[in-house]
């Protein structure tokens, strides 16, 4: 499949002013927000950018959406160069980058959508229909004709999301879109994102620091830290790449030979009986990679007099992948780490 976004050795450096209390601490600091990043996003792909705050996700998105010019390297979006063909790049995109900012509070939701539709050159008659469709899709009807200043945070986020869809662009950028939403609204929004990708074939670049969102939505994920892509692949591949001892808990009627069969599976390091009651056994199967070995574990734990009633794998998560590569949790802001180390790195 053809890449619809091509990032070619992009670097971005910021010069920031240090404003310490002590005179000697004042000065300029070079921050390498992106370091020689190259990546392709395929047409129709839901591509996740995962990383802690300050890792460089937003800087990369800003370079791809023409808000920032890269210091070195370049990128193509929808076949257009981000430095030479800015208007066409922007016309190819729908973006939700600043959360609920970026809306006119003295205009109603409907007026905001109409306004931004015009800025995306959507003809008036088409725009009117599109705005109605979006109001229905995102269930904005109750408040669409009130000024935005009266909205709750979640309502503003929904409107900002609708704004990104107003021109029905082939490529959508969402930067942490669910960040201030309540759980049911966030779930509904993720459902819509999935539908935009699967049913309408939109290419989506989805930035998040919530690993479950990335796992749920994304076909491929780039884990970014200190301005570099440290891992790239499907969530399953990334997790499978992690050599770590997993635990799978099995419950059921699991006689002695079953334990032997389980131990014989390559990659299974040990099988430990944890409890027995009423003829039922609980086993803990310690293995290298539960995702890879689970089918064989299930096969071994069924048949030949064995009966499996409950299975609970303790899976590797993308957070584990991040920890394995960086030694840190996703919750830790990269800028704090960099500042503590006294080095440049991380953008936002």
């Amino acid at each position, binding site marked *: 499949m053809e890449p619809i976004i091509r990032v070619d050795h992009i670097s971005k450096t910021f010069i920031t002013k240090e404003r310490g209390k002590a005179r000697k601490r004042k000065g300029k600091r070079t921050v390498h927000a992106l370091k020689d990043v190259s990546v392709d996003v395929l047409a129709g792909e839901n591509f996740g950018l995962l990383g802690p705050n300050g890792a460089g996700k937003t800087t990369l998105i800003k370079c791809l959406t023409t808000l920032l010019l890269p210091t070195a390297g370049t990128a193509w979006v929808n*076949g257009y160069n981000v430095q030479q063909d800015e208007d066409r790049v922007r016309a190819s995109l729908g973006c939700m980058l600043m959360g609920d900012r970026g809306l006119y509070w003295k205009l109603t939701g409907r007026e905001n959508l109409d306004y931004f539709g015009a800025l995306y050159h959507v*003809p008036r008659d088409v725009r009117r229909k599109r705005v109605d469709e979006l109001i229905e899709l995102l269930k904005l009807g109750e408040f669409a004709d009130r000024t935005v200043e009266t909205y709750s945070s979640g309502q503003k986020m929904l409107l900002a999301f609708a704004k990104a869809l107003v021109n029905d662009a082939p490529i959508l950028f969402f930067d942490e879109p669910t960040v201030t939403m309540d759980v049911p609204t966030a779930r509904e929004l993720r459902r819509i994102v999935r539908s935009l990708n699967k049913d309408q074939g939109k290419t989506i670049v989805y930035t998040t620091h919530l690993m479950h969102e990335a796992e749920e939505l994304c076909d491929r994920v780039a884990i970014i830290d200190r301005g570099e892509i440290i891992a790239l692949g499907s969530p399953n591949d990334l997790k499978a790449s992690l050599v770590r001892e997993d635990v799978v808990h099995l419950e059921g009627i699991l006689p002695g030979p079953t334990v032997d069969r389980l131990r014989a599976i390559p990659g299974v390091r040990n099988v430990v009986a944890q409890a027995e009651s009423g003829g039922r056994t609980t086993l803990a199967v310690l293995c290298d990679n539960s995702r890879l070995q689970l089918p064989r574990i299930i096969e071994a734990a069924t048949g030949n007099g064995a009966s499996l009633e409950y299975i609970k794998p303790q899976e590797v998560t993308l957070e584990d992948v991040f920890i394995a590569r960086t030694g840190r949790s996703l919750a830790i802001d990269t800028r704090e780490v960099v500042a503590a180390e006294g080095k440049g790195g991380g953008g936002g």
Partner: protein
Amino acid sequence: MAAARGGFGLGRPGWRAKADVVRTVFVARLKIIARYKGAIFMESLIPIVFAAMPVLLGTTVAAQAGRDPGTVFCETLLRASPTCTTNYKLYMLIGAATFSVVSLMLWLIGYWVRREQETGTLESLYLAPARRFWVLAGVTAYAFVRAMVAFVLAILLGSLLFQVNPFERGIPLALLFLAIGFLPLWGLSFLFGAFILKIKEADSVIQVLQWVLAFLMGVFYPITLLPPILRATAGLFPPTVVTDGVRASLLDIGFFYGSAYGSLAVLFAMAIVMPLLGYEVFELTERRLKRREGVGQY
């Protein structure tokens, strides 16, 4: 190698789309100001209050000397003008009303940049394919209408209050000066907008420049009273030519550049040079910011 080229969704660029951008921005801005109740009316009162200060001062001083204030005004402030008027109230009112038009227009882009930066809408605008020029054309059209409404209201209300008649002569010529003068003001506004985009602060700069502007454009006096260097500087400043032109048209007191044609020719030249220069500097600043921290940072 570039990625494969795809479509643009519902966007249909072209002249109709550009005109639609101007119209939509214009309507949206009008809706926003209309939702701040009484804003335009209050704005119209500013020049009246502003003009009332010198009018009351002049009336009081002349009365204490036992003289007619109109004659004192003519003999002192307008002594260098080829013709004179004793209608000092209308003179001040026109100066103050023109000053408020100039203020609205001159700080327009700077205020726009700052306001949109603070609300986060500036990045949204930069994410859209509509060129800034057309967005700003919409913003400017709105500012022009707002400034003209405020000007007309101020002149009408002020004339009632000061009991003067502004309709005696030269209204079409005065409007022509305002209309042509609008373009160099727009250009200056871009220069100022570029400055605000760079320094990310508008209020203190405007507070200072507002008074420099009032001084240079001769709100309450003819610039012929200024020393030669300041007079020459003021004469090259578009707001001065606009104020002088509007006032000379309505009061028949002689133009700074000799005649209405002379002043209009100077203003016309400024109307060509200033927008080109201003927009170029604005775009350069934008480009420079994109290389650095981005336009949305504030």
